């Protein structure tokens, strides 16, 4: 009798250990592959940095040189100079898949990225080593005050990206994109570098803390459920009018047909 109780205890213990191990492995995997763990955290020594820059240069001369020139000085009619744009601009452009640009169009668009996060860091550090420029700070970029961020977002960003952050049209086929898939670091970088038709929000316009407030607001708004039911795009009166007619009035008219058909 007793031995079987111990056997059971042992069984439970083994299971617990297996579970713990599995969870630990999972956590490790997550830490290794999760996008928020920036590779740059691993760059500790000057030697590391030198390798990263060298790797970056290699990647640059394969993927970017045709448009941005041998020394990133730019090529007329193909691509601007990258001297002084900083690691932030490179990380933004490359991690959102905008660079390398596929073809000339009204506006480089978000695509699945070509380079992984390590390679992106290498490219960024290479460009940074050329002429300096703005960098994205490390650490939790979401550590901000949501309500303050909301006020700042509505005053500074909603004019182009809309209250819902779903984006909006600008003139001549240009547009402010939706921020649906944007990560914390990309948000920070976009404000810091002002890609294309977006203004630059330097640290004088929006302090680093204010940028974190905005990020806290945008990310929480995106994640929050719609309290009123289906959000129908959070786009306001246009889809609302469509639903009023296509669902509301059509349903009532079917009811009318049905009632009139019964007499």
């Amino acid at each position, binding site marked *: 009798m007793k031995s079987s109780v111990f056997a059971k205890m042992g069984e439970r213990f083994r299971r617990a250990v297996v579970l713990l191990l599995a969870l630990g492995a999972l956590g490790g995997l997550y830490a290794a592959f999760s996008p928020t763990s920036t590779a740059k955290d691993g760059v500790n020594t000057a030697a590391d940095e030198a390798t990263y820059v060298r790797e970056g240069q290699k990647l640059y001369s394969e993927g970017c040189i045709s448009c941005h020139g041998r020394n990133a000085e730019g090529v007329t009619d193909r691509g601007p100079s990258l001297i002084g744009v900083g690691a932030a601009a490179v990380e933004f452009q490359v991690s959102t898949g905008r660079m390398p640009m596929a073809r000339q169009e009204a506006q480089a668009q978000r695509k699945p990225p070509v380079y992984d996060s390590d390679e992106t860091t290498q490219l960024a550090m290479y460009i940074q080593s050329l002429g300096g420029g703005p960098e994205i700070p490390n650490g939790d970029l979401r550590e901000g005050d949501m309500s303050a961020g909301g006020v700042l977002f509505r005053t500074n960003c909603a004019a182009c990206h809309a*209250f819902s952050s779903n984006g*909006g049209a600008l003139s001549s086929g240009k*547009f402010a994109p939706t921020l649906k898939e944007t990560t914390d670091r990309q948000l920070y970088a976009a404000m810091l570098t002002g890609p294309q038709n977006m203004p630059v929000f330097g640290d004088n316009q929006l302090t680093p803390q204010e940028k974190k407030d905005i990020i806290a607001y945008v990310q929480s708004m995106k994640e929050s459920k719609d309290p009123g039911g289906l959000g129908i795009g959070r786009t306001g009166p246009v889809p609302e009018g469509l639903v009023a007619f296509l669902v509301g009035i059509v349903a009532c008219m079917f009811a009318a047909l049905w009632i*009139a058909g019964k007499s």
Partner: protein
Amino acid sequence: MKLLPKIKPAQLPAAGAKFVDDRLTVATPMRRIFNKVFPDHWSFMLGEIALYSFVVLLLTGTFLTLFFDPSMTEVVYDGSYTPLKGVEMSRAYATSLDISFDVRGGLIMRQIHHWAALVFVGAMTVHMFRTFFTGAFRKPRELNWLIGIGLLTLGMLEGFAGYSIPDDALSGTGLRIMNAIILSIPLVGTWVAYAIFGGEFPGGGEIIPRLYITHVLLIPAILVGLVAAHMALLVKQKHTQFPGKGRTEKNVMGERMFPGFAAKGGGFFMIVFGVLAMLGGWFQINPIWLFGPYKGEVVSAGSQPDFYVGWIDGWIRLWPAWETRNFDYTIPAVFWPSVVFPGVVFTLAALWPFLEAKFTKDVHFHNLLQRPRDVPARTGLGAMVVSVLLILLISGGNDIIAEKFDISLNAMTWAGRIGLIIVPPLVYFVTYRICLGLQQHDREVLAHGLETGIIKRLPHGEFIEVHQPLGEVDEHGHTHLEYAGAPVPKKMNKIGATGAQPRGVFFPVERRSDVEAEQKALAGGHKE
């Protein structure tokens, strides 16, 4: 010591009615109302959708007034919606948020109220087009058409006022545009805008309380009065009806008010209420918490008015920036599309019954409706107006469409401008031709009969299709049936060829065997 006479329960209704009639003598008028006959074409129920959504608006709106405070006092938000905690805002906006997040059932009430507003104005519009296309506005009903135009205009204003009072950033954007529109009116604009807003925009906080009293008292009271007048005239003049068997200018065929129509109307009210509640429960509308409080510096991409103002917004977007200067006076471009255009549209709409009577020299009474195909010019014109409104509505949302479908905004604007010139005449022409074609087919069936689908080969080899005449034929095989603007049967089973069909729209409401038995009984001795 008995105060009341003893009555058996079964006699209670009769005794109660007598009690009332002895004191108020209402039996005769009530009998007339209960016996009023309603025709039952489905399109006559469009007005009812509007009426019932108005009732829902009154109910939900009254609920909202219990919690809403139109005050412009600055407060610091401390409700349960965290992303706005600690933000400064007006009490009007704060209480709208409270309704949404802290009042039990408040959010669904707000949402039903807003959906009901859209369905109310939408159903009025559809109802108006039904009246237009069937000629129901003709003498003697011009007055009710005018009341209808008044209801529609006031409905739009009421909706705009409601959209403005929560004092969120979207309603503030709407008010700012309204202010610019009023300012653009020559001579009086500045004075009127100052008077309404209590100074330069946004004024000293007068506008929201003023709109509030307009929204919950002034316009609803006028609306209730107009609706009552609309109904009273309807009862007095009786319903119109489509031409058909037994229907004349002098009678109305249909169902009595009581109990048939009352039961149907009551049921239909419940359905409309149900649809609106479903919308309010499932679909989010006007998420004011995303817009934040109104602040002068806040504007969002994709700001839109509700659809019933959207067509005017579309016209503003399409109108070129032509500023005119006369006698030292600048008229901003926005004046033409936002003041002159809607003014002309509503004036023409109001005058239409009189204009049409003048053009057609028609002085007669009309209680029978016209089918749209029988008045091709009017039908074409109506279709043209619908096409203009649709183009304007699409243009009112052109930035949203440009963004969602990856089209250039400038291309959308030009497409709207060119479409506005090309599409309406085309729509007129095509509609006109379709009407004539439908008429032609009716006449053909009246003269030659129905196509039976049976092909016969004549002795000399020619194939002909056998036609089933609808009446007595002459020696040429032609029927001489007068074209009466009434529906003509177009299929053999409409005249009983395949046996009677059970009635019902989505599923049969009669048993086939019953219908067949009834037909046999009707056919009587006729055996073949």
